[in-house]
């Protein structure tokens, strides 16, 4: 395994059905907590115009870009239609001892 697990935050720092921006080194991620209390992570910037997604609305399993309303399923990263057409990269997330951990692939 060349995945490197990074501590993001305490579980309680992300509301249910919401998203948190997480910056690590030069990279930025969006970390989600679903209404079912599951955690997910995607690249932090919209594939359309590089807007930080964490300012956007999470409803059900969809994140909506705060600028142009492009929508993605944050579980799969799938772009759900114009103006977004390129999927988001997704990252594994796990919860351990009340902390949210994000796996980023080592270069």
């Amino acid at each position, binding site marked *: 395994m060349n995945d490197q697990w990074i501590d993001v935050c305490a579980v309680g720092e992300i509301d249910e059905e919401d998203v948190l921006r997480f910056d690590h080194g030069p990279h930025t991620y969006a970390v989600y907590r679903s209404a079912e209390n599951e955690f997910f992570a995607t690249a932090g910037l919209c594939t359309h115009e590089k807007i*930080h997604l964490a300012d956007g609305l999470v409803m059900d399993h969809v994140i909506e870009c705060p600028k142009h*309303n492009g929508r993605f399923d944050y579980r799969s990263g799938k772009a759900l239609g*114009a103006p977004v057409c390129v999927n988001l990269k997704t990252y594994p997330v796990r919860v351990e001892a009340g902390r949210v951990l994000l796996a980023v692939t080592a270069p």
Partner: protein
Amino acid sequence: MMDDALIIVGAGHAGGRAALTLREEGYSGRLILIGDEPHLPYERPPLSKGVLQGTADLAGCSLCDSARLAELNIEHLSRNPVTLLEPLQQRLQLADGRWLAYAGLLLATGGRARRLPQGPAGVLYLRTHDEALALRAALRPGTRLVIVGGGFIGLEVAASARSLGCEVTVLEAGPRLAGRVLSPIISEALLNLHRRQGVEVRLNVALASLQADAVVLADGERLPCDQVVVGIGMQPNLELAAAAGLDVGQGIRVDAYLRTSAPSVYAAGDVCEFRRDGVYQRQETWRNAEAQGRHAALNLLGRELPFEAVPGFWSDQYDWCVRTVGVITALMVSRPLPGGALLLFYLDADHRLQGACGWAPGNSVAKDIALCERLISAAIPLSEASLADPDCSLKHLLRG
């Protein structure tokens, strides 16, 4: 003729989005996209921000690259504008004399910056990418810039010019900034922001003349400057449609399906004059170009969908953003947010949400505006007390 093409006149955001949508929706016939500008279809909002400041380029604003256009077999004609439309013959003529027949036509001809009648050479305007580049070349540290017009273009240019170190004066004829589309409290917030950023903003100003090195006001005051840029609105490009006998008002008039008065001819984007709540209007916004471009494409394919999208726009200035959805009404409820940010709700007589306007740093009010869009669609009566309470979750209101 079944093998006649679908043609889109106007290769801006609306026209480009329509072309891409036609292919995404499975249309495989001939598809021609005709534009005046020598560029691929692009989105205009970055022109007054990133492009002026040098942090965004044309490729970053484009709806797609040329490889994608070729892959989708979209014929893109530029520098060969349409000179004549014959709707009864369902054909149009290009500047080089060639005729093209169409099975369906979309007019997305947009507009051009409205000119001042007697501006001298050297006055700049901002509507197109090339105009943005010309303006950028004129903005240097210390440049004394006078901006005529305190609407969104003028204000965004002011913010960009300040970030480039220019000395900026904004002249507005009306009593407040962006007064046509914003509530007074937001106009006031914009005014304070620009003044804090060192812009000299003058309201209720009447111009006497523009000179090569100064702007002269009606009261005789002379404002020396190095550059004048004028942002006083857009003139819709409706001459082609008007000459062809299509119904036009302040734009190309369409019905609820975005159909013009000519058979198989649709209109979309800035040039399209459509009825909302019984009133003819144009929407010169990114959001409208996106929505109508897509919508007209679907109806060109026979979907017969009425256009009912909720309007909205945003404007980024410095680190702040004003963002709206829906329409302004007389019944306004204000919700204060931390740090001087603000969320305004506009209700109808039954207390159903009709519109909202957020004023906040960055994109921090975007979630609330996205929820307001859903509350507008949900049409549920809302209490003024809940809306005014910063601790009352809009998502909670939406889900009852």
